[in-house]
């Protein structure tokens, strides 16, 4: 499918407040099936919050989230999963005392997997977890736990996948490998949103990026253009100075 297909996700004017603080302040963007959209911005700009709202952890305080022509803002997460939205976590959140297999088993059973779903063994093999299939998730390295998060998400056969800093902490070979996996998923028709700090990685895999600052998008387009926009440069430099 081409990235020019009609959007599957449309976020418009979304506001999310924590107390008086606007973590999202009128965020709008869209993503289409087969497209890889990068979501970049300094720490605290609201990238994770955006993913949390889209995946149902928080209801938006204003604005709308529409997925496959359905209004989904504020819908319970498990229902969103059944509609086809899934995600990974910046800090991986597997079921620690359950084995890798059991982790995936839960998602396959409750996430609406069908006969067409990839078999568990293939998924574990593909994401390099076959050797640890019977170990508790707590035994895995951070990188393996991230892959387990991803496999758990894929086991529910999502149409939209939100990846929150999946590549952080991977070595260069692993980075190339996971970039290839993500691209292959998009080629299969999945819409993917990637939050990442590594600009090389973003450049390698995304079709388009949204640059966020203070809960709003300040740029939309290709990364090559983004890095020449003064406002974007300032946000990143300002962010680094502040950090």
């Amino acid at each position, binding site marked *: 499918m081409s990235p020019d297909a009609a959007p599957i996700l449309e976020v418009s004017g979304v506001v999310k407040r924590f107390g008086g603080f606007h973590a999202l302040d009128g965020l709008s963007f869209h993503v289409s099936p087969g497209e890889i959209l990068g979501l970049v911005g300094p720490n605290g700009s609201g990238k994770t919050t955006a993913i949390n709202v889209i995946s149902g952890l928080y209801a938006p305080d204003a604005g709308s989230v529409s997925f496959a022509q359905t209004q989904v803002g504020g819908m319970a*997460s*498990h229902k969103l999963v059944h509609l086809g939205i*899934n995600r990974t976590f910046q800090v991986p959140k597997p*079921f620690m005392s359950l084995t890798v297999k*059991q982790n995936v*088993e*839960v998602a396959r059973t*409750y996430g609406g997997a069908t006969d067409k779903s990839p078999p568990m063994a293939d998924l574990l093999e593909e994401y390099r977890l076959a050797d640890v299939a019977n170990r508790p998730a707590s035994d895995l390295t951070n990188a393996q736990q991230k892959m387990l*998060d991803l496999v758990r998400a894929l086991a529910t056969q999502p149409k939209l996948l939100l990846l929150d800093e999946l590549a952080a902490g991977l070595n260069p070979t692993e980075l190339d490998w996971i970039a290839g996996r993500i691209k292959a998923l998009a080629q299969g028709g999945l819409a993917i949103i990637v939050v990442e700090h590594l600009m090389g990685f973003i450049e390698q895999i995304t079709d388009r990026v949204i640059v966020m600052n203070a809960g709003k998008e300040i740029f939309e387009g290709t990364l090559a253009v983004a890095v020449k926009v003064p406002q974007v440069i300032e946000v990143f430099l300002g962010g680094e100075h502040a950090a």
Partner: protein
Amino acid sequence: MPDTVRHYLFIAVPLLVVLAVAPSVYNNHLLLFNFVIFFILAQGVNIIYGFTGYLPFGYVGFFGAGAYGFAIMVMHLNAPAPLAVLVGGAVAVVLGLILTPLLRLSGAYFSIANLAAALAVLHLIANPALEQITKGPYGVALNGTFNPTMAYAGGILILALTLGIVVYLKNSSFGLALQAVREDSFSASMSGVSVVRMRTIAWRASALVAGLAGGVFAWYVSVFYPDNVFSADFSIFAIVFALFGGVATISGPLIGVIILYGIYNLIGFTTPQYFQLIYGLLIMALVLFLPAGLVSLATRRGWNVP
């Protein structure tokens, strides 16, 4: 052989058979009955705590509600005892329904609110203003249904049901999903699990078995006061036994009851001063060295404990 069948065959059935024949070879009938009650309650704690992570300090509330459900059916409606036991279970489930909002609390907040709820039920039932219905603080005497042999058999049936529930949880995708909710509720919902629904079902199942146990206890003892059937000892013992053996397993809570309630009865009555000491030390050692219970001695070595 599927695991479910093995668990029935090698854990549930032997225990039930031993308990069924025990009265014919051992004459302390009340003690055997108490074992049955604690097997049920420890497994009831296992259902809610082991599989969902909610520690019910007020678990006795369901037990007491079941006992009074039984008593009211017998006193006012002349109901046959087995029916009254079932009503006891139903009363506890209704109490569980009323207390469902507690599941929104987490950790110690849930435990304390649950404890408060059990006290509230106790004081409602023991209220002299309700003497016409509950006999208030003066207690009930149900001589008409007194039949320890039948009550004991009823207890074994309820234990069988309880073990059935735990074996199911241990082996089903439903039980696995419950454990997923316990480990990380948001990841569980991102696996498509309806977290609220899961917790509610487990909560009601554990209320049901405690209510049935309370009903059959009332049948067995036939004379009791509110303070007896709402005694915090029931909650504490059931929780300690379950944790000592190891929750989220079938055998852990059973082992906990056999060892700790066994010790309690061996030395508790003859030399209470030593009992308190040994019990206290055991529990401290457990919390310090074996927080996941006795079964973790085996699971740490990679053995799978049913």
